[in-house]
Every structure is written in structure tokens, then in C-alpha cells.
């Protein structure tokens, strides 16, 4: 079965052709995005866009149906005191919680994302990973966030990593596949770029930075390198790939700088929840506080915004 999937996915790209990345240059470019000053209506517009791009996430060993239901409630009712807010793009949970989320979100246009493939370490056999994926999809997940086998990647076994992604993509059926590179374990931006290229060629619909379980999680630096890989892939194939930085993005200011980076790297076509997501648990409330401040002119307290 896996073999057929691989055939569909196409060929393992020649990763030696992937351009080198210079860390200091990337840092400088990121600093330049961060020097953009986003004010007034462009800020409000950005904040709303950020809300709509959030994958509201709970991925803990202590997750219960109760916790997931509360999270879904928050996804629907971000802050009812403010009319005209979008909903988040998705809630993101473990496979065993997909059913709970599905029920809670019935009738709402919010996607259900599930991590799979022995998240977060990915240390299991392919068949277990595929079962994990199918189980989540069968339970109603519309998006699957898989992890790559970092050990195999670091050992240079690109073929293994490629085939695994292709097989999971096949198991996803109609569900969108987000491929988590776990950049905090890849060590260098050169590897981030290579892993991005590999994942896109293997069938990823999205590439995603991190599980949130490893530090560092998303940084603007790794996200920039992944966006550049997406751009090159688009120019080469005409195929758009989505991007999801996850973990560590908890303030509006930082999220706005991600949007600046997205806009100046990939352009307007990617500035929608269809092509860009934030994997975050506490970002939404900070964005809401900022939106409230923009409309009232008064600085806000966390006590007035629901935590779920």
C-alpha cells in the first residue's frame, strides 16, 4: 500500500540542490520585518486576520472531554462583547478527542485538526502511524498534523522520511495534511529548508514548524526559511502550500510581525486562513485585548477575557 502512495507522491527531490541558508542574514531580514510599525486600521485588520488564522490548541496528557468542550466553546465565542469578530480557523486536539470536538463544533465553520503519527516524538512504526491517522480522520478530523521522523532525517535517510509522509498523505484521504518538521530538533536553518522541500514534494498541504513540545518552537527565522521554500516550490510548480508556525507565538505584536513577514515573502494570496495558520493556545486573548484597546482606547486586563 505504502508503495502505491509513494508512486502517487512523485520523486524524492535532490536535496543537494536546495539553496544554502545563512543564519546571520536570516536574522537581519527578520529584524527588518520587526522594524515595521503597524498602526491604526492596518493594525485592526491584522488582528482580525490573526484571529481567523488561529488553530486553537490543547495537546496535553491531561486533556479530557471537559477541557476540549470548553476549548470549542471559546473557539465559537471568542469574545461576545465585541461584535463582528471572526471565529478561529480550527481547534487542534489529540485523535482521541476528535469525536468530542466534532460534536461540540457541530454547525460551525471551524475545522477540526488532529495531531497524529505518534505525536509528538513520532517514535513508532509506520503502520501504527497510519492507523493513528485513519482513526483521527474517521472520527471527523478535517486536518491532520503529522510529525516527521527527525531521527531518520538527521541520519540522512531522506527516502524514509519522504515515503512516510507520502503514506500518511494517502491515509489522510480528503483531510488536509500539515507536516510538522519540529525545527527545534533539526538544529540548523539549512536542514529546515531541506526538510521543507522534502515535505512539500512528498505531499504536504501545509508545512508546520513545531509540536510545541520542544524548545525552541516557532521562531520568525525558521518560519521565514519555510516561507521561502514555499515560494520557490510555488514558482517551480505553481502549487501553493500553506504555512503554520506553532508554539511560542503568544503576543499580538509578534503575530503581526509574522503577518508582515508573510506579506513581504509570499504576497497577498497567502494572507488567508486557507494558507496560513498560527498554532497557539494563548494568542487569541492577547489579540482580543488589543482589538478592544484599539476600539476603546483603554488598555485591557486579562480578567475580562475568558480563558478556556
Amino acid at each position: 500500500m505504502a508503495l502505491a502512495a509513494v508512486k502517487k507522491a512523485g520523486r524524492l527531490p535532490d536535496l543537494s540542490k536546495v539553496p544554502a541558508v545563512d543564519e546571520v542574514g536570516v536574522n537581519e531580514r527578520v529584524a527588518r520585518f520587526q522594524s515595521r510599525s503597524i498602526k491604526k486600521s492596518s493594525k485592526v485588520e491584522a488582528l482580525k486576520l490573526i484571529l481567523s488564522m488561529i488553530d486553537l490548541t490543547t495537546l496535553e496528557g491531561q486533556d479530557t472531554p471537559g477541557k476540549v468542550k470548553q476549548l470549542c466553546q471559546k473557539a465559537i465565542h471568542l469574545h461576545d462583547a465585541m461584535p463582528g469578530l471572526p471565529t478561529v480557523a480550527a481547534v487542534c486536539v489529540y485523535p482521541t478527542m476528535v469525536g468530542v470536538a466534532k460534536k461540540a463544533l457541530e454547525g460551525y465553520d471551524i475545522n477540526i485538526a488532529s495531531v497524529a503519527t505518534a505525536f509528538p516524538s513520532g517514535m513508532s512504526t509506520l503502520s501504527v502511524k497510519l492507523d493513528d491517522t485513519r482513526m483521527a480522520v474517521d472520527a471527523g478530523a478535517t486536518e491532520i498534523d503529522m510529525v516527521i521522523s527527525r531521527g531518520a532525517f538527521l541520519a540522512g535517510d531522506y527516502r524514509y522520511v519522504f515515503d512516510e509522509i507520502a503514506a500518511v498523505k494517502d491515509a489522510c484521504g480528503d483531510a488536509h495534511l500539515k507536516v510538522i518538521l519540529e525545527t527545534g530538533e533539526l538544529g540548523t536553518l539549512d536542514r529546515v529548508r531541506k526538510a521543507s522541500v522534502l515535505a512539500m514534494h512528498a505531499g504536504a498541504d501545509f508545512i508546520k514548524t513545531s509540536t510545541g513540545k520542544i524548545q525552541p518552537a516557532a521562531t520568525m527565522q525558521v518560519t521565514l526559511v519555510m516561507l521561502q521554500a514555499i515560494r520557490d516550490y510555488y514558482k517551480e510548480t505553481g502549487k501553493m502550500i500553506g504555512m503554520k508556525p506553532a508554539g511560542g507565538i503568544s503576543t499580538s505584536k509578534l503575530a503581526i510581525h509574522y503577518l508582515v513577514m508573510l506579506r513581504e515573502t509570499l504576497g497577498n494570496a497567502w494572507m488567508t486562513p486557507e494558507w496560513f495558520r498560527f498554532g497557539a493556545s494563548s494568542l487569541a486573548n492577547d489579540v482580543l485585548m488589543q482589538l478592544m484597546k484599539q476600539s476603546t482606547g483603554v488598555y485591557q486586563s486579562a480578567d475580562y477575557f475568558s480563558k478556556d
Partner: protein
Amino acid sequence: MAAKRIAVAKTYKIYIGGKFPRTESGRYFPLEDKKGNVIANICRGSRKDFRNSVVAARSAQPGWAKASAYLRGQILYRIAEMLEGRREQFVAELQQQGVTARAAEKEVDQAIDRLIYFAGWCDKYQQVFSAVNPVSSSHFNFSVLEPMGVVAIMAPEESSLLGLVSNIAPAIAGGNTCIVLASESKPLCAVSFAEVLHASDVPGGVVNILTGFRSELTDQFASHMDVNAVIYCDGGKAVATKVQDLAADNIKRVVARTRVDWSKADNDNPYLIRDTQEVKTTWHPIGT
């Protein structure tokens, strides 16, 4: 009675690109001793001789600059060895040109010692004058010396061997090539020194030595667009003005070494090397 042997007179020629041609102009001037006897006919070098020298110096320069510092040091040392071996000849030539025996011996000895001194600097001056610069950003930054390139030298009129050597040695120790105009009134040692250079593994074109009239060649030395630096060792304000005025046409570096007593120990110093060096600073990011 056996006939007295006829001495073989030496022909003094110029030195360009490792060869000893006569001046292309065919002109010469007679060099006389104090009593008015002609010692030798000296080439009256022309602007074309100078031009040819610059071509030779330019083509030799990259190779000479690339030679290892160790090798340059060995070659300078070799020059000193060869000069030592021909010590008597140089003493005699100086005397022929009016220098007292004692002064001539001292000058030759000092010239040899100065060569040894600069031979030793070849692989050290870079360490003294370079720097690693602690810039605030994440970059490795260092400054090193590089030779200016082709240096035109108008050698001292009076100190015709020591002064000549004191100007050539630091220039070539630093990887430059040069064209030297010998003392007009005492040109013999310069030509003989060219022979020493020739026998010392100095690659052709690294040092080119012309004889001739300063009044005729100063403009050429200062104005040539393919010369990077000009050193002048004599002359008053008029010469200084003319040299710098013409040098400015290609922003040539101008080094004035007037009124220098070349016999002083103070001339043993690496700042003479630095005079014909550029500082190059290189930046590179530090990252993964």
C-alpha cells in the same frame, strides 16, 4: 717586458623585467670622477624605458605578492648574501664616485645589514600591523595589509647605495614591485645592485632600475596612471608640488622621504614597509 694588461671596462645598463637592456632611446651621459675622467657611460633612461618598466612591474606584481612571506624573506636575505659577496666591488664603485674609503665601507656594510633587517620583517610586519576588530554585530572582522602594487621610487641622490636599498627593501618586502630611478650623480652602485638582485632569485620585474636625469623623469614617475604609489627622496618645494600635483591624476599615494640621513639606525623600522601598504578589512557573518 710583458705588456700591461688592458682592463675590461664595465658597461652599465639599465634593468627592466629581469633583463639588462640599453636604454631604448640610445642616449647616454658620461659619468666623470672628481678629476674629470670619464668613469663610464650611463644610460639616459627615457619615458619609454619607464613605461616598459611599469609594464614589467605590473605583470610581476600579483605573483610577487602571492609569494609566501617566508620566501620573500629568503630572497631578501639572499640579496644581502650576494651583496656581501661583492662587497669590495661596491666599496670601489662608491670610491670611484667620490665617497671616502671609510664612508664607502660603512655604507656597503649598512646596506647589507638593512637588507637583513627587512628580510626578517617579511613574515612579521603583517602580525604587527593587522587587527581583528571587535565589531558589535555577529561578524568576524579583520584588517590586513596588502601591497599597494606598483611603486615608483626616485632614490636618494647622495646615499646612492644605502639610500637605494633602504627604499627598495621595504617596498618589496611588502609584496610591491617597483621602478627605481638611481642617483643621477652616483648611478654605478644602482646598476651593480641590479646585478646582485638578478643573481638573488628576485623574479624579473619585481625591481626595475633606471638611470638617467631626474629632471626628465620626475613627471613620468609621478603621472603614470598604472603606478599606485610614488616615493621621492630629494627635492625642495618645487619637486614636492610637481609630484603631488601629477600624482593626483589617479589619486596616487605620495611618500616624501626628503632630508633623511639613511645611515641612522632609526631607518630600521617597519613603518617604511607600511608606507606602501593598503589596509583591507574583511567582514563575514558568524553563524550556522
